[in-house]
């Protein structure tokens, strides 16, 4: 527990939280990391296989094959989300299925399905980015900062 948070708690609350903490089962971080490594790795292997197929049979180069590969992974993820399978995979895989592009597609598809009942504008349109929105915002902000650093480093050297 963070010290600052602890200060706000009364002694009785602190005592209770120590007791509760002892009883609560903890997230199995080691196992979760291993599962994320395996499942995330498998998704990447699948992506690589799809890319190789585009290169071998689709007449793409390794550079141009990237976009259709991502598109295929997104479609697969959306299909699995629609059939209610992706969240079951995620309970096992954790970050392994959340971090790759399939996780991003799942977050948008699941929000869109969930809020379809509120209509196309206020439901699907407005809520689709409920979870993905912060990824986009902070992704763009981070990219901007990296870009600025890159320009500065370029001008110095």
């Amino acid at each position, binding site marked *: 527990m963070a010290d600052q948070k602890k200060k706000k708690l009364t002694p009785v609350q602190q005592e209770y939280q120590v007791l509760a903490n002892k009883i*609560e089962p903890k997230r199995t971080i080691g196992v979760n990391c291993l599962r994320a490594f395996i499942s995330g790795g498998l998704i990447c292997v699948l992506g690589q296989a799809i890319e190789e197929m585009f290169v071998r049979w689709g007449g793409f180069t390794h550079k141009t094959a990237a976009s259709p590969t991502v598109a295929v992974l997104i479609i697969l993820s959306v299909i699995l989300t629609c059939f209610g399978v992706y969240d079951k995979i995620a*309970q096992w895989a954790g970050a392994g*299925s959340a971090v790759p592009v399939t996780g991003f597609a799942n977050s948008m598809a*699941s929000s869109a399905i*969930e809020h379809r009942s509120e209509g196309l504008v206020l439901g699907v349109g407005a809520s689709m980015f*409920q979870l993905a929105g912060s990824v986009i915002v902070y992704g763009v902000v981070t990219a901007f900062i990296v870009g600025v650093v890159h320009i500065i480093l370029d001008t110095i050297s």
Partner: protein
Amino acid sequence: MLKGHQSWVFENKPSILSTATIVGPFEGQGPLVEDFDIIHGDLTLGQESWEKAEKTLIEEAANLAVEHAGLTKEEIHFFFGGDLMNQIISSSFAARTLSIPYFGLFGACSTSMESLALSAYVVNSGGAEYVLAATGSHNASAEKQFRYPTEYGSQKPPTAQFTVTGAGAAVISRQGAGPVVTSATIGRVMDMGITDPFNMGAAMAPAAVDTIQAHFRDMQIEPGYYDLIVTGDLSKVGYEIANALFKKHNFPIEQTVYKDCGMMIYNYEKQSVQAGASGCGCSAVVTYGHLLNRIRRGELKRILVVATGALLSPLSYQQGETIPSIAHAVSIEAGG
């Protein structure tokens, strides 16, 4: 009649004339399947939204309970209902179709016993001949409102609980056959500073223990008076914490059998529910279905049901607020 500081004794013995329990497909796969009146095979109940499905659950349970009592809706004087949705829409919309004079309650998952206690009080004091108490929850509508979209792939921690899809209703009457509501203890709001909405068992356990101790203090009886004490939806984590608190307070819980509804409705080995069940429907369907059936069969004589509720909102925990909790206890005894 008030007894002690926060308890009512119902000397006119209002009886639970009839009950009804409606659940979803997942609950139908659990060990209590025999105790439910209707098990829906479709999680949507044929409705276009999760919210409408939840409303339908409550509506069906209410209608069926009235039917089981051999009454018509016009003969019911009041309806006490509540649920987990914002502005308790499921109960209020069900009350719209039921067209019974209505009190909307919000006690989160403690609503089952809050509504039963108030119904018994009104009947006991001559305020009504027949009162309907109903509550329910839906797994998907609760996930949507409190957590993430249902199909979103997030990994739940082992302390998380699975919201029950189900609704329970009871008709309480001034006279008639059936188990009798003998007393109730109204809980106070407790907050032990837990902030994690995936750890509601730990947030609610102190409220349950507080209300249980208050009940025995007010009623001046010992836990051994009851054949069974059940808490609403503490599940594995909260149940263990509650046991630890009883021990710490030197409360003789071992005189009786202590269980938790959240640990009874699902099969832990076959169903992935982490710590166990939660939701308004949890204590409602377990009590009105399973436990009352056991009383009717004569297996239990006196039980104390302590429904627990976490009074958080999606907004409050995002703003870093702690989770206040409450518990209400109702004592039910075999009639006659």
